[in-house]
């Protein structure tokens, strides 16, 4: 999948969050890394059509994304989005959370939607959780159900916004395992993450964002073994300091 960012800028009430972001690469899995507050989540939301950039253009496989409500509605249906936490509808059970987009955004019949959801639940070992409400599920289960909901609609691209940052290491592994499996099935993903191990091993390319723009990007092996820029070098030194 080819993603082209052309001078993307975003500011909130005069505060610049992204400045002249340019990127043009083909990949099947991309990890966005960088210090907190650098604009990673904002960029992911712009790619997902949840935020409109102040300026600039986004192309997915050379097709321009039109930031107008009507076009965005159908664009968002082609993208899966996983939130950092609390990403499920609180008033619906796990199963209903997965079937709702199938029924109401994709006009699938209820029976077919339940069948599709049940298959995913079985595949990812969530059969027991189908009838539970989000408040009755562990953080890891919530994240896996979010991913199940996102992939149930067969998106061309799955976006994940720090999907494990609210989880303890054991649950993190559970979520990353599921993600790794989906990536090896050929699902295109962009993940904002602080899990350097996952970024290095499971992601084809890395984008490093600092101070509101892309400082460096490239194949993950190269980024980790041979960082070019000073900000990336010091970032990696910091985050890998206590790495075993």
């Amino acid at each position, binding site marked *: 999948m080819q993603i082209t960012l052309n001078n993307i800028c975003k500011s909130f009430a005069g505060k610049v969050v992204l400045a002249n972001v340019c990127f043009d690469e083909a990949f099947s899995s991309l990890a966005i890394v960088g210090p907190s507050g650098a604009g990673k989540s904002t960029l992911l939301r712009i790619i997902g059509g949840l935020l409109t950039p102040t300026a600039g253009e986004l192309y997915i496989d050379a097709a321009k994304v039109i930031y107008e409500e009507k076009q965005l509605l159908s664009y968002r249906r082609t*993208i899966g989005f996983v939130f950092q936490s609390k990403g499920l509808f609180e008033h619906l059970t796990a199963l209903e959370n997965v079937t709702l987009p199938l029924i109401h955004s994709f006009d699938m019949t209820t029976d077919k939607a339940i069948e599709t959801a049940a298959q995913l639940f079985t595949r990812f070992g969530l059969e027991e959780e189908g009838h539970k409400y989000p408040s009755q599920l562990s953080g890891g289960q919530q994240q896996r159900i979010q991913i199940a909901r996102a992939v149930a609609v067969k998106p061309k691209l799955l976006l994940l916004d720090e999907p494990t940052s609210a989880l303890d290491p054991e649950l993190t592994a559970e979520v990353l395992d599921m993600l790794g499996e989906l990536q090896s099935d050929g699902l295109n993903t962009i993940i904002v993450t602080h899990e350097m191990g996952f970024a290095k091993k499971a992601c084809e390319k890395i984008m490093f964002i600092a101070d509101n723009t892309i400082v460096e990007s490239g194949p993950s092996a190269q980024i980790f073994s041979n960082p070019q820029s000073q900000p990336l070098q010091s970032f990696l030194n910091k985050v890998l300091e206590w790495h075993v």
Partner: protein
Amino acid sequence: MIPMVTTTSTPSKRTKIMSALIVALIIVSFLWLSMFLIGYKLDFATLLPFKQRLWQGFSATLIISVMSLLISLFIGAMTAIGQKSKVLVISYLAQAYVQIIRGTPLLVQIYFFFYIVGTAWGITNRNVAGALILSIFEGAYISEIIRGGLESIDRQQYEIAKAIGLSPAKTSRLVTFPILMSRILPALSGQFASIIKDSSLLSVIAVNELTQNTQEISSQNFRMFENYFFLGLLYFAMSFTVSMITRWLERVYKHADNT
């Protein structure tokens, strides 16, 4: 099998009935004792000759309350949305409505709306005017209940709806409405009961509702205690029914999050 084991978690039907009977007994004995102490003997047979008028008053109160419930819900919903409007004139208008109505007594509003506004705009039917005045009054409180409910919904719920490609209309129907209902139904239930009770104040503009009719009956039979005791009972029957219906609705909209 030891029955005690099965009754430890949730009380059995028998325990429930027994407990309810004991509570009923306590209330009835308290009332009876109070009556006994002041040496008054209640005789409800004195109400019998007036059953036609009582029934007429009861149905008038019922109709006015149901009408007001529907209209005030509509006014409340509109002004709750209006308060959040980006058009400042609409927002200020809705806020002014809520503040003025909630800040003045119903009695003042009844006189003002009936004798000044009603006369000026030709609304002379007392029942219609009564129902409208009550709706305007209760609408302000319902508006605040709905506004509070809307503001309590986590913004991210809307972002999820957006992300899965749900249209704005479907978001309102499938996300906002059910979450809102589960949050505001208890408060709404109390407000609905208030509508029924507040309708008694409409007697000051001689709407032939239950309280007005009871006052008239009292001036004929002079049995104040029986009349007002029975009046209270009828109001309770109505508000208790409303309370039961909203409890049922609460169960419909209940999800694990608010248990």
